[in-house]
């Protein structure tokens, strides 16, 4: 028995690394699913409670009555639903791979797509912050918060992507050994 460290049955370094990346995938997958749900909820609530923070004054001024609100909600649903589906799909696939169940390489492309959307959103918010997009100038705190959330999501997706790729590299090495 090695003094100082309790006995561990397995000492395979590659297997250990694969486990580490799988765990990262599982955690980030859960996080991205939660982020997708939260983002959708935030958009719906934002539209219902204060549409002026999300829409241009031209649109908000022309919304009148329940029909107008419904039209906007439906229009947003067409954007929100696929986006939410994308988050949940990516999250589910990452969790599945993290648990060692199924492996699907297609979702790595979707991770890159989502990460690009968040990076684009950071740039978009930054443009709003410096006044290039005038209608968003009233909500500086909102823009800063959005940028922080987007940056977090982008980092999480980056970590997820890296883990998925590293798993493939180490599994290849393991098979090679």
């Amino acid at each position, binding site marked *: 028995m090695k003094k100082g460290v*309790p006995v561990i049955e397995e000492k395979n370094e590659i297997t250990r690394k694969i486990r580490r990346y799988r*765990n990262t995938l599982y955690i980030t997958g859960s996080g991205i699913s939660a982020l997708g749900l939260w983002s959708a909820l935030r958009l719906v609530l934002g539209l219902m409670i204060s549409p002026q923070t999300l829409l241009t004054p031209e649109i908000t001024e022309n919304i009148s009555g329940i029909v107008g609100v419904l039209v906007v909600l439906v229009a947003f649903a067409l954007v929100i639903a696929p986006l939410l589906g994308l988050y949940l799909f990516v999250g589910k696939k990452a969790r599945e791979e993290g648990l060692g169940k199924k492996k699907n390489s297609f979702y790595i492309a979707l991770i890159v797509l989502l990460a690009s959307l968040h990076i684009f959103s950071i740039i978009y918010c930054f443009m709003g912050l410096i006044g290039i997009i005038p209608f968003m100038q009233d909500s500086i705190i909102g823009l800063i918060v959005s940028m922080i959330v987007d940056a977090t999501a982008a980092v999480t997706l980056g970590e997820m992507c890296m883990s998925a790729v590293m798993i493939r590299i180490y599994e290849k090495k393991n098979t090679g050994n």
Partner: protein
Amino acid sequence: MQKDFHYYATYCAAYLAGYTHNECMDICYSAQLVDHCSATLLRKIKGPVEAATTQLQLELMDIRTDIAGLQDITRIWASFHFLPFDLYAERKWAPKMYLKKYRLICNTNSDLLVETVKLAKDKGTQAAGIAMHVLADTWAHRYFAGTPSFVINNTNYYFYEIIPDGDGFTERPVKFIHNPSAPDDHENGIYVNSLHQNSETSVMNLGHGRAGHLPDYSYARYRYLPAWGDYEEIVKDNPSDYMNAFCQMIYALKYLHGEEPSFEKNRYDTEAVEPWREKIKVILEKRQTDACEDWKKLAEEMSGNEIEDFDIGKYQSEYTDSGDRDSTYLGRFIAAAIAQKSMVTYHIYKSGSKLAGVSITKKSRKGGSDK
């Protein structure tokens, strides 16, 4: 471990070590009492609360997890149920606070185990029983620490039960639920564990709470990722570990009985157990959450005497009504419990950790030192 091993199996080990039936009863009663001697019980019999060897769920629910509360918990659980393996273990890049907790991880054949058994020498059957409880638990509770710690004791979704299937084994993920009133369902692999609490010092993260009672079942084989293990997997084989525990108990009890000159690490009495090995193996491998009936039958077959069931009130009136409490069964149990707790607390403190509290060493009148 549970009553089946601490009471009935300890009786068997003591019998095989050469003790008489009555001595065996005293030893196994003391070994089982460790799981019942809580502060609540001690208050009831007006005994010293510092002799507590366990904490009830209700006590743990009530306890404050401030420094004093945590020290109280650690003193009890590290001394009697999760004996630390190496109080001077090193780990690269580990912060001091983490390292102190890492050093409390329980494992078998430690220096502290040798001290525990030697401490019980010539101290009577009560001390022997306590030592056997501690020894047996090092096999069941290995890889967990007797202090509330999320970073040491937590487990996650990576937890698989390994089940014998013909000549080989199959695996299935363990499903943990948090209903404390629900029984463990070993048929379907559904076990009760403590709630996930990411608070470092939540009592939910004490010992093997996050792995439920799986470590306490002799039939259980499982693999999982301990929080402290840096993604290295642990494969736990309880039937094999419990057999080792049984053989080591016989060896330790032979030492306490005077048949072995010394107690050394990594020594097991496999000879004495040989005639009973197959029967013991069958009991250990049988998928049941309570093996009391089987162990009792075996113990009665071994000694030819009837083994009475464990009765928590057996010695209480003797203690409460006595003018000389120290000489009663419970009085001697309490003295042995305090000695064991002091010894472990002293060693933890000496290693530079105050997780179990501060140990004061003073010169005794006899010239030695008291801890």
